[in-house]
């Protein structure tokens, strides 16, 4: 059983050996993202504040557990974790509290809508510190709602619709012709998962005659997957927990779109 996009922690690990996850766990996304974010800053970042959505399960898990662990790994102190709720209208209280801590940088872990509000309020209250955000914001509407305030916000994602890579660009064009709208993160992940599953079926010669044996073959194909080339997201391996590992694309908001960060 392969979930293309579930981001919930430990889903594959909890259902060994039959469950696998194609989407990167947030930990595997955020580690390279933080590296890129820290390297890119003119001034070193020693102290951060985390702004997170306490109501959304994935965002609150990232905000409470994933980010703090990775930040500690990189010697960065988390001054304060300020939370808000999905659907909140007012973020002024949270931002003023964050401002009071005067951090070097800000980590936002929320869905695109709330993240856009929080970032807009940060800039509105005159906080110019660099911002890095969780996977929740990987959606064009983040920039639409947040507006100019989202400039320079860094994030990372498996699939990135505006990736200049020829293979990805061609696929995105075909998607837009068929469905008249830009593919989202999920569509890319779904495509690659099915592609790899097909590769496994071809490589193990499964033809559906013997269900019990076929199941084991496919399971092993996924379990031992090493650097198998996924068309959109590149070389993918599966770790012992059944989670995929690969190099995610690090993005930054420039103007009205996400672009690949250099």
């Amino acid at each position, binding site marked *: 059983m392969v979930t293309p996009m579930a981001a*919930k922690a430990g889903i594959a690990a909890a259902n060994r050996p039959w469950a696998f996850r194609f989407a990167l766990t947030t930990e595997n996304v955020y580690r390279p993202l933080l590296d890129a974010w820290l390297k890119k800053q003119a001034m070193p970042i020693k102290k951060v504040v985390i702004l997170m959505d*306490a*109501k*959304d*399960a994935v965002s*609150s*898990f990232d905000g409470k557990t994933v980010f703090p662990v990775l930040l500690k790994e990189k010697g960065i102190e988390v001054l304060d974790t300020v939370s808000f709720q999905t659907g909140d209208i007012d973020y002024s209280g949270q931002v003023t509290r964050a401002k009071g801590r005067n951090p070097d940088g800000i980590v936002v872990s929320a869905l695109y809508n709330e993240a856009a509000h929080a970032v807009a309020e940060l800039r509105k209250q005159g906080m110019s510190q660099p911002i890095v955000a969780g996977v929740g914001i990987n959606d064009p509407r983040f920039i639409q709602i947040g507006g100019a305030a989202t400039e320079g916000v860094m994030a990372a994602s498996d699939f990135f619709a505006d990736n200049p890579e020829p293979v990805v660009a061609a696929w995105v064009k075909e998607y837009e012709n068929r469905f008249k709208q830009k593919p989202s993160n999920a569509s890319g992940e779904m495509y690659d998962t099915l592609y790899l599953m097909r590769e496994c079926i071809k490589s193990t010669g499964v033809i559906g005659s013997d269900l019990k044996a076929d199941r084991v073959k496919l399971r092993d194909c996924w379990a031992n997957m090493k650097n198998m080339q996924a068309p959109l997201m590149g070389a993918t391996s599966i770790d012992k927990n059944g989670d995929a590992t690969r190099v995610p694309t690090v993005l930054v908001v420039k103007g009205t779109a996400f672009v690949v960060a250099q």
Partner: protein
Amino acid sequence: MWSSYWDSVAVFLGINVLMGISLYVPMTAGLISLGQGAFMAIGAYVCALLTKANVPFLPALLAGGAVAAVAGLVAGAPALRIRGIYVMILTLGFGEIVRVFFLNFEPTGGASGMGGIRPLTELWQVVLACLIAYAVAWRMRHLRLGRAMIAIHEDDLVAEAMGINLTRTKLVSFSLGALVAGVAGGFYAHQALFIDANQFDFSRSAITFLYVVLGGVANPFGSLVGAAIVTLLPELLRVVQDWRMTVFGTILVLIAIWRPDGLLPAPRLRRS
């Protein structure tokens, strides 16, 4: 024909009927609660926790109801000195507080809710619970407690002058209703198999209110009719898929205008 789809609709209908009765009981004493969702949540979480510690289903259900009943006493207390609309908004507030509590209460899963609940609810259990609840609600009208509640609803000065302890009767009626809502919550948890705070928010309490007022406040079977309409109508309206809620909302307005006191009249006095 009785596909599992209709089976689950029937179970949820039964649960909604129980919720209707849970509001009918305090309303006979004039206590209009917009917070029954909170008691349902308490019952659901308590019952689910117990069955996870593999306590058998029936005791877990009753325990859920009992804890909800105690919560009913807590919520009922401030409601004693106030009337009508205050009780509505106060219980609404109580409902929001309970929702926020479960949103942050980690032992029951907090924001991500509680899953992995065993599917123990069966239709016959829910039907039986409804029958029992109706028997009690109907019989109660002809018993001391029921009479006291009706008297309090109409004229609490007279009720008190006739020796009825207002506080005790109101609290009993409020926590009795909470108990029924708690049991309904227990059934819900073991039918939906995943519960989180937002399933028991204000809209849940408002819909429960609809069951009773739509069906007819003065008649215990009013909540049955109301629950049936409000639960089945959206299902039947699937045909107008896009405009389902608009049609449903319009129907509510029309019924409210056509039968302000609800569809079923107050029951004729029993000839004895």
